[in-house]
């Protein structure tokens, strides 16, 4: 992958508020009302993304990554769901836009690839017909033209003999082919924002490699902004330009991919990096697991949501238990939400965390 020039807009939060990104998410909050209390699935998320760049969102289940992406797509519209904050896509605020307007954008300007292609496709309709339908919603063309487009797309995503397979049903495809077909559907209207929610988690590694390659090629071709949601740090390292680490509904660290992997500053990011087994390091007898479990989103701990699991919480002073840390810029484009002093974070990572990675 060739290094792309760093967009100047990414330099610092202050600048980010002035300059417009292609996608700007500001203080996004998604809350689900339940009988047990409000689930704060996303709690004040802010980030920006340019066209042609890929953002990897990492986090564990319940960290709010999928809730945030569904909100971006305008798919969080339940009766007990509230979406607050701002989502600016190409200068338009999607949170305040009418449902009809969001509907006309969805599929054309922004599209989504889901984790499980078997449940995301209708089993009763032919794959081609599903792509044709998606295309004709946004383009006033005949079925014949749309079908030609569907075949073209299936061919582009690497489905062999696309002209024949366009008439297949989803169950006739293998997992990898179904995922390709879904990518073809998502790309049918050349979306400028593509959100992929765990696009390779259900796939075998060899197929995953094919799909990641395909996404990379397609991005170069269409210059879209891609958000890829995953819990696999290897996938992020492979495909992302920037990484956003989420914990309990909030971003705890956000920065260029190189820096997140070589100089991460948040203890949760350290925990993620050191708890994975990796092929490129000598094997150690024990993994350094993060103790405890992710918190419930109904009762997120006060202060820093990570403090009950953080082994450095005592070094951060009393504020860590009472005050929620905000994202502070520590380097160009690199933001961290942590109460530890910057010098302490750099020293701990260098002396204690890095040697065991």
């Amino acid at each position, binding site marked *: 992958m060739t290094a792309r020039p760093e967009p100047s807009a990414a330099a610092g939060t202050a600048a980010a508020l002035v300059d417009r990104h292609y996608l700007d998410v500001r203080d996004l909050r998604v809350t689900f009302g339940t009988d047990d209390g409000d689930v704060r699935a996303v709690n004040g998320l802010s980030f920006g993304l340019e066209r042609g760049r890929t953002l990897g969102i990492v986090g564990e289940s319940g960290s709010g990554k999928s809730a945030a992406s569904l909100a971006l797509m305008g798919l969080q519209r339940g009766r007990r769901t509230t979406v607050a904050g701002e989502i600016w896509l190409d200068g338009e605020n999607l949170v305040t836009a009418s449902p009809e307007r969001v509907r006309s954008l969805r599929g054309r300007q922004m599209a989504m690839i889901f984790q499980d292609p078997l449940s995301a496709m209708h089993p009763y309709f032919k794959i081609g017909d599903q792509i044709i339908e998606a295309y004709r919603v946004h383009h006033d063309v005949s079925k014949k033209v749309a079908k030609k487009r569907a075949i073209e797309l299936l061919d582009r995503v690497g489905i062999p003999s696309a002209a024949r397979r366009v008439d297949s049903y989803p169950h006739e495809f293998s997992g990898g082919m179904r995922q390709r077909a879904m990518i073809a559907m998502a790309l049918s209207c050349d979306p400028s924002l593509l959100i992929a929610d765990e696009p390779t988690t259900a796939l075998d590694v060899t197929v995953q490699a094919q799909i990641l390659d395909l996404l990379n090629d397609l991005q170069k071709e269409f210059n879209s902004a891609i958000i890829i949601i995953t819990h696999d740090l290897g996938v992020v390292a492979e495909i992302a330009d920037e990484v956003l680490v989420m914990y309990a509904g909030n971003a705890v660290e956000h920065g260029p991919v190189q820096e997140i992997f070589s100089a991460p500053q948040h203890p949760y990011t350290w925990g993620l990096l050191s708890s994975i*087994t990796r092929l490129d390091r000598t094997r150690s007898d024990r993994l350094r697991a993060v103790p405890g479990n992710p918190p419930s989103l109904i009762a997120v701990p006060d202060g820093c949501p990570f403090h009950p699991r953080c082994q450095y919480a005592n070094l951060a002073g009393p504020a860590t238990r009472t005050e929620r840390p905000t994202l502070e810029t520590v380097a160009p484009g690199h933001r961290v939400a942590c109460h530890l002093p910057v010098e302490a974070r750099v020293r701990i990572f260098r002396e204690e965390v890095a040697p065991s990675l």
Partner: protein
Amino acid sequence: MNSHDSTGPASTGGAAPVGADAFLKGAAPPAPSTSPAAPVVMDKPDPVPMEKLAAVTTAASGDALLRVTDLQVHFPVTQGALVARKIGAVRAVDGLNFAIRRGETLGLVGESGSGKSTTGRAIARLLEPTGGKVEFDGRDITHLSARTMRPLRRDIQMIFQDPYTSLNPRHTVGSIVSAPLKIVGDLSGDALKARVRDLLELVGLSPEHLNRYPHEFSGGQRQRIGIARALATHPKLVIADEPVSALDVSVRAQVVNLLGDLQSELGLTYMFIAHDLSVVRHISDRVAVMYLGTIVEMADRAGMYEHPLHPYTHALLSAVPVPDPAKQHRRERILLRGDPPTPLNPPAACRFNPRCWKAEEVCRTVEPPLVEIQPGHQVACHFPEERELV
């Protein structure tokens, strides 16, 4: 799509070598059956190819707890509503030979559909093997009836993948963990309760959780309950089928550590089935790679990950993304075309040949046997070659 150059090994050129000998430079040929543990194979009526025999005998040396010989599990495919006619068979597992020593962990890796779970289930006798032999602790258990198998069940236990569906939601943790003990019938009353408390503590849960229901626990905690249940009867062999793949990263590490601790504490023998090659590397002493119902390569951990020989192993290893952006972008990647073929009608001879970049005529006509080409390292390939991948 396959942009990387993928030439055959330099040493062999275009000529088709016989077996793996072409690769062998200094390695000694496998010793033919001299081990006293060989009779298992010797009294098989049909002649086993020499290479296969060698493979089995080497694996058998040492104190094997489990020995699997030419294991086959086929599922019939039938047609017709009133009278079901057999029109074919899914050859999920098709001729496996391996042994697991006491106290060792054998990792079984492969893509979905490679037959790794079927292998585990056949060994635990949750499935009836179609052919071959499964010997546990010196006893042939291949076709034991449900009743004669029952006393042995305490020795072979399973941990399942999905901690949500493998625990009965209407039973308390106490009754889930005590169920195997009640069936075995060793303990009752207070002794039983005490044992359940010990088990919960052993897996890192609080004994007070006894009366709670599975839905009150997180995924990692549920998997601990599943582990406690599997360990209740002091099993000798634990078959863990994807035990951590449903767990989150930070919790996965906790459970992997727990499995390691329990093994050294209780002297367990594991068969660890997983598709994640890096987790398998962490936990296994030896690793077997499966493709379409057969083992294509088997070696100890270092051999498998540092000197893999089979092209399929190369492809698998090179496809695992490495969490280091700089290194990941420099790495050589072998992109396999297409998907694995169906086990209903596997390719003739070498099953990997339609996707293999090294395939030559011999691969389409002669099935490569699993031969030992370095001490403890077996591979089923006509053109094995070492390759640096990680």
